[in-house]
């Protein structure tokens, strides 16, 4: 009898929490250009254009505010694409009129690598400081223009809001953390196969190779030939092949600088439901500069 009461209580609690779970995401992680066009007048949505100021001034999605990508990721020492100080980030986010309850749509370009990954890096950064409802525009501004959707040249001045960061520390991790998790976490190298296999490297990456034990899940596999994200089922199959079926297992993704890896991190977490995906911000640029770091092949 006692056990039944206990079970009932558990069921009631779960039933009460279920709607909250649904509310945890107020917007799909990927929104289409058609969806955004229909929602341009939705006052709850903050459209953040992360392109260069000059490009924004030349034309942007009506109502979009401009917060250039360089505000979200900076160079620290030799490392590219690093997190700015939290107080600077809070200024940027509050200045864009974003608060923790905002529904944010990130808009960037998709025709150039690595700029096409600006959107997910910004989305991941927003999640890091406690803005949960973040989406990226599938196809970006590139597709918006290609589809002849309306553009504006009127710069939007956001109504600034005070923003206090609630940092989710687990979303970005450092080298010491990665070292401590080797052999425990699934480490995913999201660079192309030639980079993973140690045959190629970018100029600013100190040497060839990968983190010991890493598996390969290239970011190039995320997209259709048109530059749009593949369908959920297809992405799920790709992710499962690399990361396995255990959605709760700790996963650490990395790339060259900590930018492109956010694409898989965002998709795996926000679309596919992986519970514990972390981005190694220093990535190959930092790891491969350390003579003591475990490297293969």
């Amino acid at each position: 009898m006692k056990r039944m009461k206990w079970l009932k209580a558990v069921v009631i609690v779960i039933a009460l929490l279920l709607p909250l779970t649904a509310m945890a995401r107020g917007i799909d992680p990927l929104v289409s250009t058609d969806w955004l066009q229909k929602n341009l007048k939705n006052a709850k949505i903050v459209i953040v254009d992360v392109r260069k100021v000059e490009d924004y001034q030349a034309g942007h999605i009506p109502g979009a505010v401009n917060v250039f990508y360089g505000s979200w990721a900076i160079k620290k020492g030799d490392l590219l694409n690093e997190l700015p100080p939290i107080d600077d980030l809070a200024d940027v986010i509050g200045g864009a009129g974003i608060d923790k309850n905002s529904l944010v749509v990130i808009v960037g370009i998709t025709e150039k690598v690595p700029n096409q990954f600006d959107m997910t890096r910004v989305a991941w950064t927003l999640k890091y400081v406690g803005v949960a409802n973040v989406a990226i525009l599938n196809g970006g501004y590139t597709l918006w223009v290609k589809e002849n959707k309306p553009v504006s040249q009127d710069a939007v001045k956001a109504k600034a809001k005070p923003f206090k960061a609630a940092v989710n520390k687990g979303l970005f991790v450092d080298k010491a953390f990665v070292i401590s998790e080797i052999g425990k976490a699934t480490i995913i190298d999201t660079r192309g196969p030639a980079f993973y296999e140690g045959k190629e490297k970018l100029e600013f990456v100190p040497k060839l190779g990968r983190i010991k034990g890493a598996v390969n899940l290239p970011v190039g596999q995320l997209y259709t030939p048109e530059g749009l994200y593949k369908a959920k089922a297809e992405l799920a199959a790709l992710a499962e092949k690399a990361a396995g079926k255990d959605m709760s297992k700790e996963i650490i993704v990395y790339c060259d600088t900590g930018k492109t890896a956010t694409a898989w991190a965002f998709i795996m977490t926000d679309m596919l439901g992986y519970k514990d995906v972390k981005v190694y911000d220093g990535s190959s640029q930092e790891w491969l500069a350390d003579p003591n770091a475990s490297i293969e092949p």
Partner: protein
Amino acid sequence: MGKDFHLAMECVSCHKGDDKKETKESAHAGFIAKPSDNLKNCGICHKKTALNYTNALHYTSLGQHEGVKHRFSAEELKTFDSKVFEQSCRACHASCGSCHVKSPPVGGITTGLLQGHKFVKKNEGKTCASCHGGRVYPEFTGEYGGTPDVHYQKGMVCVDCHKKTEMHGDGTMYKSKQEVKDRPQCLSCHKNRKYQIAHELHKDTVSCQACHSSGQYRQCYSCHTESGSTSKPDFILGLNPRDKKTLTTLRLIPTIRSTFNKAGIKMENFDALPNYWDSSVHNIKKRTERTRSCDSCHVAKEGFLKREMLIKDGSKANEELIYNIKPINK
């Protein structure tokens, strides 16, 4: 097309040639590719602007002349004027079309028309960024140095601070930008901010950018020299060579002893000017290592010009810019 009055005119109005002729060769006889190289053409309608512009620094390039002439003897200056300045430096002058029609050529290469053949009021990314694309512009956008200027982050571009009188001139022929009074000043916009203690303490002895530069900017080592150009990012603090008392951000400029060897100029007075000059760097941030901690300067002396850092065989005047900062008496 219709909204632009210029385009309502016949092509030959500006470019000359003869549009009634049937062959290309005869139609192009007397053709002028860049009509605004002759300011009088634009001056027909824009009389005052064109007149002012004939004296503007963007047109006269006198700033470059003034920047180096004190290194020369009187004889050397004559050689410089005839062999170097007129043939090299002056080639950099911007015509009206360089900013309003077609990107200015840099090293002989232009990125082309700004917007078809429309006459545009401004397009900083394709005009200012072309000539100032080595240092100022990429530092401003963060493409060099890695941290964009806070003003750029807030959507500001060049002409939001640099007004058109700075571009077109005010009619006076200035020797250098230092003579121009109406230049952007931080305090023009930030004057109403209540001074913090640090501002009050440093306001007469430290430039704004000395504390608010986000960090590394381009230091030029051997541009315009025989050995080709190199540069690297660095952050340098020292005394302003123009007053020798204000601490500010310094930029290494590329004139070295052999720069004008090819023209037969040895620079007899090379040591009269330093190799490091005050630079109003365009990578400003609200918070920097120096605004966050007094110790950054007063204990660690980060970025301060030191004797051992000075470039090899540089000017003797460089040593006068070294500032030995003292710890704070607590």
